[in-house]
C-alpha cells in the first residue's frame, strides 16, 4: 500500500511530495524561529494616558459609544427608559452595546489596541474593580474632569469611596455594585451559616459550587484561613490555596462557575453555593426557597465601573452620562430593573416613587449592618496576577 518514492507517478506532485513540501515549510519556519527576527518579543503595553488623548469632539458630534455587560440596564427600547430620557435631555445619541461578557475576555480583545495607543472606538467601557485597577495601572484609562461629574462626587455611597486603586475617583465611576455571599435552596437543606460550613458539611458533599472568579472565591478562602483579603502576604495566599485544594480533592465542590450556578441551584444539582446578590434576587421571583445570606466570614463587596478608555472622542458626553446616572432619581429607575446594589446616595428615597416594594431590600440598598461586614480584595501586581491566577486555575480546573 505504501507508494514508491517517486510518488505514484501521477504528474510529479504526489501527496507524499506535498507532505514533504509541507514539512519543508514547517522546517523553514522553525529555522526562521531560530534566527532573531523582528517581531520577536512583545513590547511593554504600558502607555501614558496623557500621550494617548484624542481631541474631544463632543460639542460638534452629539454621540456616545458604550460597552456594558448584558442585562445591566433597563430595557433601552422603551421611550421612558433611562437611556432614552438621557438622549432626550442632552440631544446625545447613545450607541449602547452589551458586548462585555467577561473581564479577561474583554481585556484580551482590547489589549493590542490600548497597549499600543490605538483607539478601540468606544467612549466608555464597564469593567469590574480589579480589571479597572489593572487598566488604570497600564495607563489605558483617561482621567475624568472632576468639575463635569459633580453628582458622582456628591452622591457615591460611602463603602465605594476611597478604594485603594483609585481613591479620588479620578478614573472610575461605579455603574452598579454587588455582594458576594452564600445562596442556598431552603427546600433542600438547612441554613448554611458560614463559608467554612459550606466547605465542610458532609451532607453537602458534591452539592455545592463556588465562583470561578478568583477574587470572589479566594477572598473567602483567605478569610477562612484567618487572613485579610484586603492585605495579605504570599504565605497567606499559599495557605488559602492549599485549603481550597483540599476541599476540591475531598469532592465537596461540584463545579466552579460563572452565572450558571443559578440554574443548577434551581434544578437541585447543587443545594448551596457562593453567589452574587443580584442573581439571587432575580431567582427569588421564580423560587422563593432560594435564600441569600451573609456568611459569618463577611460579604465581598465589588463594583463594575464606568471607564473612559484612551483616545475616546466623546469624553465630555461620557461625563454627562455619568452625572446623569448619579442623579438619585435616574439611579433608582435603573436599580429597580437591575436589582444590584445601587451606588447612589438618595436613590433609596427616590425609589419610594419608582417601586416601593424594593425600598427595604438590603441587597439593593444595603443597611449599615450589612455594609459593616463587607471586605475588599487587595490590588495585585501583574506578577501576582499571573502567579495567583495560574495556581487558582490549576485547583479549580478553570
Amino acid at each position, binding site marked *: 500500500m505504501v507508494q514508491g518514492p517517486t510518488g505514484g507517478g501521477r504528474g510529479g506532485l504526489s501527496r*507524499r511530495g506535498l507532505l514533504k513540501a509541507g514539512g519543508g*515549510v514547517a522546517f523553514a519556519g522553525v529555522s526562521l524561529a531560530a534566527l532573531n*527576527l523582528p517581531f520577536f518579543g*512583545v513590547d511593554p503595553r504600558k502607555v501614558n494616558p496623557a500621550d494617548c488623548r484624542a481631541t474631544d469632539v463632543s460639542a460638534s458630534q452629539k454621540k456616545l459609544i458604550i460597552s456594558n455587560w448584558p442585562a445591566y440596564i433597563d430595557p433601552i427600547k422603551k421611550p421612558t427608559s433611562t437611556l432614552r430620557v438621557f438622549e432626550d435631555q442632552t440631544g446625545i445619541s447613545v450607541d449602547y452595546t452589551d458586548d462585555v461578557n467577561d473581564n*479577561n475576555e474583554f481585556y484580551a480583545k482590547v489589549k493590542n489596541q490600548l497597549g499600543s495607543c490605538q483607539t478601540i472606538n468606544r467612549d466608555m467601557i464597564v469593567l469590574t474593580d480589579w480589571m479597572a485597577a489593572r487598566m488604570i495601572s*497600564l495607563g489605558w484609562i483617561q482621567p475624568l474632569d472632576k468639575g463635569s461629574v459633580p453628582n458622582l462626587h456628591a452622591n457615591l455611597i460611602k463603602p465605594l469611596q476611597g478604594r485603594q486603586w483609585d481613591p479620588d475617583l479620578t478614573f472610575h465611576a461605579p455603574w452598579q455594585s454587588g455582594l458576594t455571599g452564600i445562596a442556598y435552596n431552603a427546600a433542600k437543606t438547612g441554613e448554611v451559616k458560614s463559608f467554612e460550613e459550606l466547605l465542610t458539611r458532609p451532607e453537602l458533599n458534591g452539592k455545592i459550587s463556588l465562583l470561578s472568579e478568583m477574587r470572589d472565591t479566594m477572598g473567602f478562602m483567605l478569610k477562612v484561613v484567618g487572613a485579610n483579603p484586603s492585605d495579605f502576604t504570599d504565605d497567606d495566599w499559599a495557605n488559602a490555596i492549599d485549603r481550597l485544594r483540599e476541599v476540591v480533592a475531598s469532592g465537596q465542590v461540584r*463545579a466552579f462557575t460563572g452565572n450558571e450556578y443559578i440554574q443548577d441551584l434551581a434544578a*437541585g444539582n447543587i443545594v448551596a453555593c457562593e453567589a452574587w446578590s443580584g442573581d439571587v434576587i432575580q431567582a427569588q421571583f421564580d423560587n422563593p426557597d432560594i435564600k441569600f445570606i451573609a456568611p459569618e466570614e463577611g460579604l465581598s463587596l465589588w463594583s463594575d465601573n464606568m471607564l473612559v478608555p484612551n483616545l475616546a472622542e466623546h469624553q465630555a458626553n461620557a461625563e454627562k452620562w455619568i452625572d446623569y446616572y448619579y442623579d438619585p432619581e435616574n439611579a433608582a429607575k435603573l436599580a429597580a430593573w437591575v436589582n444590584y446594589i445601587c451606588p447612589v446616595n438618595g436613590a433609596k428615597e427616590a425609589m419610594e416613587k419608582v417601586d416601593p416594594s424594593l425600598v427595604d431590600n438590603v441587597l439593593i440598598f444595603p443597611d449599615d449592618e450589612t455594609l459593616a461586614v463587607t471586605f475588599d480584595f487587595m490590588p495585585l501586581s501583574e*506578577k501576582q*496576577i499571573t502567579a495567583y491566577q495560574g495556581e487558582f486555575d490549576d485547583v479549580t480546573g478553570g
Partner: protein
Amino acid sequence: MSETVRKRGSTGYFLLIPGVLWLALFFVVPLYSLVATSLFDPSGSDLNGYEMTYHWANYWDALQSYWQPLVRSLAYGALATLFCLLLGYVLAYAIAFKAGRWKNLMLVLVIAPFFTSFLVRTLSWKLLLADDGFIVNTLQFVHILGSDGRLLATPVAVIAGLTYNFLPFMVLPLYASIDKIDGRLIEASSDLYANPFVGFFKVTWPLSLPGVVSGTLLTFIPAVGDYINAQLLGSPNQRMIGSVIQSLFTDANDYPAAAALSVILMVLIVGMVLFYVRRAGTEDLL
C-alpha cells in the same frame, strides 16, 4: 503543442497561490508566532513586555505542571473515539445496507444536531444527566448507581458528552466508505463458504478501513482538544488540556506556558496520527 502543455502546467501553480497565501498568512505565521511565544522569558508581563530568551525550559515546566490533564485528555479522547466507532459503525452499516428508502432521512437525522449550537447541545446534556433527572433516577432504581450516586461531574458524563458531540464526524466518513462497498463481494464471500462473521471481517471491515481511519482522526483530534464537555459536564477533577491552555492564555496571561503547551499538544497529536496512519497502512488517505 509543447507551448500548451507548459501553459497548462503553470496554470496549476497559479491556482495554488490563493490557497498557499491563505495558509501562509493564517497558519504558518501564527504557528511561527506560537513557537516564538513558547520561548519567551516566562517572567514577562503585559506591563513590562516579553523578551525572547529562548527559554526552552518552558516546555519542561509546562509538561511537569500539566502532564495530568494532558494524559487525561488523551485518554478521554481515545475512549470517546472508541465508543464513537462502536456506535457509529453499527449505525453507518445500518444506514448503508438496511435503510432502503429511509437512507437520506437517516443521514439528515445524523447531521440534524448540527443545526443547533455545540454549546446548547452540551448544556442540554446537563439537564438529561441532572441529579434529579430521569436517567439518574432510573439508574439508581436498578442499583447501577448508589442512592446518592450521580453522573454529572464524573468522567462518565464527560466521555459520554464527547462521544455524543463527535459521533456525526465518525458516522459520515464511515457511511461514505461502507456505502461504496460492492454488495456482490459480500455475496461472493458467502458463496465461498464464509459465514457472515468471517465475511464481515474478511470483506466489509477491510473495505471500510478508509472510513474507519478518517472517522477516528476526525473524532480523536478535536475530542482531545475539546474542553467544553469537561467544563460543563465534569468537575475540576476532570479538567482537560484545552481548558488549561485557555485559562493560561486568557486568565493567567502566562503566554509562554500556554504556547509551550499548545506546541506540545500539537506535536503529540501529529506524532500519534502519523504512527496510526502508518500502522493502518492507509497513507494514501493523507
